[in-house]
């Protein structure tokens, strides 16, 4: 067992293989559930392409796992603001996701001007901004201006929430 653990260490990329295999199985199960009945026109039914895609996902999962176990690895993407010399900063990522979800939960309840401000301020906080006056002010200004531009200027409805009539 310890040999296996040794072999798996630092191979988190195998998780990609697991994900691909899971997706492949999901697609195949879903395809098997599609009834082939009289509504089908032509020789190829609605399940054919899902079967091909599902099998391809499983096959790629196996080939990728083989590549990883043989020492292959994907090159992480580079960018202007990216510094790969440090380990992943999961705290920032989780805080960002929390800020994103806060907007999802709040948008239909308290309206976009408030939920959007929470999203921006939360995300800026997560990314390390600590101006406790400037950050919320920018967040509120951005959110209110965006709301006004979209709903008044472009005619795209964003929920106003309790601020309906105020803005």
């Amino acid at each position, binding site marked *: 067992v310890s040999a296996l653990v040794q072999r798996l260490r630092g191979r988190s*990329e195998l998780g*990609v293989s697991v994900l*691909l295999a899971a*997706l*492949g199985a999901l*697609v195949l199960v*879903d395809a098997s559930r*599609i009834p082939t009945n009289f*509504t*089908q026109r032509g020789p*190829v039914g*609605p399940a054919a*392409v*899902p079967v091909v*895609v599902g099998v*391809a*996902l499983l096959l*790629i999962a196996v080939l*990728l796992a083989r*590549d990883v176990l043989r*020492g*292959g690895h*994907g*090159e*992480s*993407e580079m*960018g*202007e*603001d*990216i*510094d790969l010399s440090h380990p*992943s*900063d999961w705290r*920032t*990522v989780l805080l*960002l996701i929390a*800020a*994103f*979800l806060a*907007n*999802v939960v709040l*948008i239909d309840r308290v309206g*976009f001007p408030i939920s*959007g401000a929470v*999203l*921006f*301020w*939360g*995300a*800026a906080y*997560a*990314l390390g*901004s600590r101006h406790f006056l400037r950050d919320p002010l920018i*967040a509120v200004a*951005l959110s209110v201006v*965006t709301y006004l531009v*979209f709903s008044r200027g*472009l005619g*795209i409805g*964003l929920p106003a929430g309790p601020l309906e009539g105020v803005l």
Partner: protein
Amino acid sequence: MEALSDLLNGFATAITPANLAWAALGVLLGTAVGVLPGIGPAMTVALLLPVTYALDATAALIMFAGIFYGGMFGGSTTSILLNTPGESTSVVTAIEGNQMARQGRAAQALATAAIGSFVAGLIGTMLLVLLAPYIVKVALKIGAPDYLAIMLLAFIAVTAVLGSSRIRGFASLAIGLMIGLIGIDFQTGQQRLTFGIPQLADGIDIVVVAVGIFAIGETLWVAAHLSRRPADIIPTGRAFMSRDDWRRSWKPWLRGTALGFPFGALPAGGAEIPTFLSYVTEKRLSKHPEEFGRGAIEGVAGPEASNNASAAGTLVPMLTLGLPTNATAAVMLAAFIQYGFEPGPLLFEREGDLVWALIASLFIGNTLLLILNLPLAPIWARLLKTPRPYLYAGILFFASVGAYAVNASTIDLMILLVIGLLGFAMRRYGLPVLPAIIAVILGPRAELWMRRTLQLSNGEISGLWSTTLAKVIYLIIAIILLWPLISRFLLRGRHPLAEAAAETGVPVEDQEDDERRAANRPVGEGAARSRVLEAEPPDTDGGRDERSRP
């Protein structure tokens, strides 16, 4: 010339004061967003999609033309003024451009980039005008099996030719095909992969996929590895060039255009290869080869023109065949679908006025870009100083607005997050993004053509290769897939990269790579990038060295 009169009609549609204003707004927004570090042209277009929802189709597409060129130019500004290259297409521009900027020649680097982009965009769009009607005429004659074959070629080409690992490209492709399956089957009305969620029945909106992969995925990925060092930005004045700069720039512009356009128009062209080729060509032809690596203006002029010409080239297959060949074209095609247009050769027939208005606005957007951006360069440079927390918080903010605005539904926001996490994982584990996004867009169309083909042939599988064109395309696909084997056989152990290096005088360090992997990347993005970076003399590489030190 029929095309020219169509084009003139297009100009008549596009040149109204209101439409000119939309084009100018598009150029300004596109440049402003494109200049922000971390935001490439594809993300610029995706993030600005919602702004165009409220406009009528003509105004929206005209604004798009502006966003398209603005986003492209914004990217090169970033790579000249910042000390690290961003998108792969600006990597080459960054080498000489940043060196020029460090020597106080930022204004000249930006000017040769802007004017070169203008020249390339002008020639590229003219070639589009000349070629498109001819290709449409041919395309209207080909049948269902040919369309299927062309789409499969696009899948295989973006997956197997670009990028450094084929298996990871195919993983990305398969994930994209899976996302494309979600929704109601168009022929039978059966639900596929909807899991009883009614909002999934219409499929996942392509805008949500594009914004999720490009904006959310990128933000989460940057957040996990945010560089804590303040960015080193070089200030600049108004962009201008001296007579000597003009003399040294005009030939590289034309050569870069000649290299960029054909590569853009090919299914797996992309801009990485032509920009790299242009750099190498200019280095070889230059009278001042010793300046290369220390800020040679030819090294900015050529690749930048090549980049823009390639972008114009990608519009040829996109408008005539409905075939996107790079990420920006994919997002633009998503916008077309969003407005209810069926991409493909019929687009020119059914929506001729609109397409010609779009092409006319490409000329207008290109010209506005030049007029606006030369004097505005110092303002764009200041935008680069946007604090990173605000920048990425803003991306999350506008991505959420855009995804919510599609259907006013929070389900879309949840889907956006899931796809964003997928985009994060893809960046982490080196799965290229392009095959996935192209598969989401083209997958359902390829299925449609496949089922039509087999319907026509009564289920006979040979119906798939019943035409000459389809046979030729399948042969090309087979060659691409078997290329690693073929090249090993042909070269008999000669390393393809080593050969290229001998030709260009650029050293290669990839040779200790596992041979199988290296054989996969003779001209891929990764190869071009690493080779170009190695071409820099070590003494001018101080900035990067400091960076890599812990």
